[in-house]
């Protein structure tokens, strides 16, 4: 028993993630009981998954922004601006959706470089820069189309937001799941091989196997659920919704950046000790600008998903979104003081928030009560975070 405990300790299991996953499961089960089985129905889970995508996509990059000791209060407004711009170019200016999206990306990059340069080179705190941006770009979103709603009709484009035709179907979903599972397994084997070559101590095989089988089981269960959702008047079940696919891809890419590249490591170093980062020769300003560039790309992706979900671009697109994104990030264990946070945490944080919101909606809880509860959940998450850090000796 003692041996097993030592093994577990060495396996470097992230107990915070284990706990958060447990919280998510408990929330789901409780709502399922209260809603008499509706909450865990494939239809409801399908909806929750695709509703969370926009917040989830932005939360992945918000983790990095906050880790680097910055904040972006303007994500909602900038996303609104970019979204309306894309919709305006497609609907009013008759651009192809591809060209419009590229233009949207260019606009997002321009905005991000402006805000990033003020932060990185002029030294204005990002809180102030993006607080200004929060208002200015909401105004810009209004000006683009003079406040008029820009409806969208391109059938392919609308799939990007999920909805009626927004699933990839059962076959594609299973193929994707199989590929992902193989990828996880290969990654684990590769890691064991590399550790052996360099003589670094490895986990016992069974520990590594369990650590791979858990995500594999989650992937398979998720795909099975999405494949079980069959809209009554359609021929085939939905499969994985495209916005969730996009979210998953974004989370994978950003996790890769964090764990496997200098860029990711430098963001954490800057967040942990900015002076040390500069003293060891990390190009702090360049890394900050790159981070804002990444933010621009993800804001554009989120904007595309958001307008195709709405079937329109409106000037209120993304209103208050920054609060949901930051809340998801914080519930996911990212410290506002900087230096620590995980991408998978932001995924769980976004899901926990959306589950609580959707669950209360199912139970007909009034909007006032919902706001109160979600606000307190955020605080509870931070209280837990502080207690957890004290317990592990990682006090900030």
């Amino acid at each position, binding site marked *: 028993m003692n041996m097993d405990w030592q093994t577990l300790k060495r396996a470097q299991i992230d107990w915070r993630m284990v706990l958060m996953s447990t919280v998510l499961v408990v929330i789901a089960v409780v709502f399922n009981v209260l809603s008499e089985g509706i909450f865990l129905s494939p239809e409801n889970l399908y909806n929750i998954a695709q509703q969370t995508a926009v917040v989830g996509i932005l939360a992945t990059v918000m983790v990095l922004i906050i880790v680097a000791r910055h904040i972006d209060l303007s994500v909602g407004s900038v996303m609104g601006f970019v979204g309306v711009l894309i919709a305006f170019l497609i609907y009013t200016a008759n651009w192809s959706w591809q060209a419009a999206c590229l233009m949207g990306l260019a606009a997002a990059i321009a905005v991000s470089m402006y805000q990033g340069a003020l932060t990185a080179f002029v030294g204005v705190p990002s809180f102030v820069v993006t607080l200004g941006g929060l208002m200015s770009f909401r105004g810009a979103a209004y000006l683009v189309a003079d406040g008029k709603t820009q409806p969208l009709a391109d059938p392919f484009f609308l799939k990007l937001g999920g909805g009626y035709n927004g699933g990839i179907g059962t076959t594609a979903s299973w193929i994707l799941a199989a590929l992902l599972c193989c990828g996880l397994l290969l990654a684990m084997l590769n890691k064991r091989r590399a550790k052996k070559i360099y003589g670094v101590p490895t986990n016992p095989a069974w520990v590594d196997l369990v650590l791979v089988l858990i995500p594999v089981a989650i992937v398979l269960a998720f795909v099975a659920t999405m494949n079980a959702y069959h809209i009554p008047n359609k021929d085939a079940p939905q499969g994985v919704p495209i916005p969730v696919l996009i979210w998953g891809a974004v989370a994978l890419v950003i996790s890769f950046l964090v764990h496997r590249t200098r860029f990711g490591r430098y963001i954490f170093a800057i967040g942990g000790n900015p002076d*040390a980062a*500069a*003293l*060891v020769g990390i190009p702090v300003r360049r890394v900050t600008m790159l981070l804002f560039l990444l933010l621009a790309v993800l804001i554009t992706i989120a904007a595309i998903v958001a307008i195709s979900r709405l079937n329109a671009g409106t000037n209120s697109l993304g209103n208050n979104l920054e609060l949901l994104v930051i809340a998801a990030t914080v519930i996911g264990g990212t410290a506002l003081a900087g*230096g620590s946070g995980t991408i998978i945490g932001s995924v769980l944080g976004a899901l926990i928030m959306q589950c609580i919101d959707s669950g209360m909606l199912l139970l007909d809880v009034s909007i006032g009560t919902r706001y109160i509860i979600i606000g307190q959940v955020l605080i509870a998450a931070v209280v837990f975070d502080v207690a957890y850090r004290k317990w592990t000796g990682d006090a900030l």
Partner: protein
Amino acid sequence: MNATDNTPHSKPAIDTSRCLVELRNIRKAFGGVLAVDEVSLNLYPGEVVAVLGHNGAGKSTLMKMLAGAYPIDSGEVLLSGEKVQIRSPSDAQNLGIESIYQTLALADNLDAVANLFLGRELLTRWRTLDDHRMDADARKVFQRLNKNFTNIRIPVRRLSGGQRQVVAISRAIYFNARILIMDEPTAALGPEETAMVGNLIQQLKAEGVGIFLISHDMHDVFALSDRLAVMKNGKRIGTYRTQDVTEDEVLGMIIAGKAPAGKTQTERPAR
């Protein structure tokens, strides 16, 4: 570009008669305040030169210019007789100058391995971090300094002062520093760990590394240094062989800024 970028540079044969570092008439002003005023200082291979002075005397500023953390306003830096431009910490590192700072320039949230390689990570041929190679190499360096140091994969904020110092010093050792700047290396350490740093300095000296030692601790200075330079108000008061002066005379220089009578200054070690 490939992973070989980061392999430690090979050391030339030790020639202790040739000056390793020559700082010539270095000046630095912050706003209107002259922090370093026309200071010149030499360092020879295998030599420890202690740099002394009150807080604000300019010693840390002088060393930070050599380390590339501050740009030099005017003056020259020569390494092994060649004029060099040090514009950034990376420039300094590429020239074989490593620094260990008083505040321990470590990213507290990263583990010991990440800190050892911070800014100079080993990469695979895909330009991704080569974690396993870094892990294996790091274990070797840490082993050399402290056999009991094995928890190298937890954030360094959870390590003891001595372990953190091991991480900081490892940066210099792994990348084969030719010139080492140590800013109060024993300030946060217990007696055993202080002894470890002392041994390490002897070892590095034998390998021909030149060391600038910034310290307030007179015991350290007299135990470890070959020469000492005293600064006050940005000016160099004097440079002496450590064996030629007494502790009182050194304190007199630090406090009153006056050179002791009848002692000859020297720009070279006693060899």
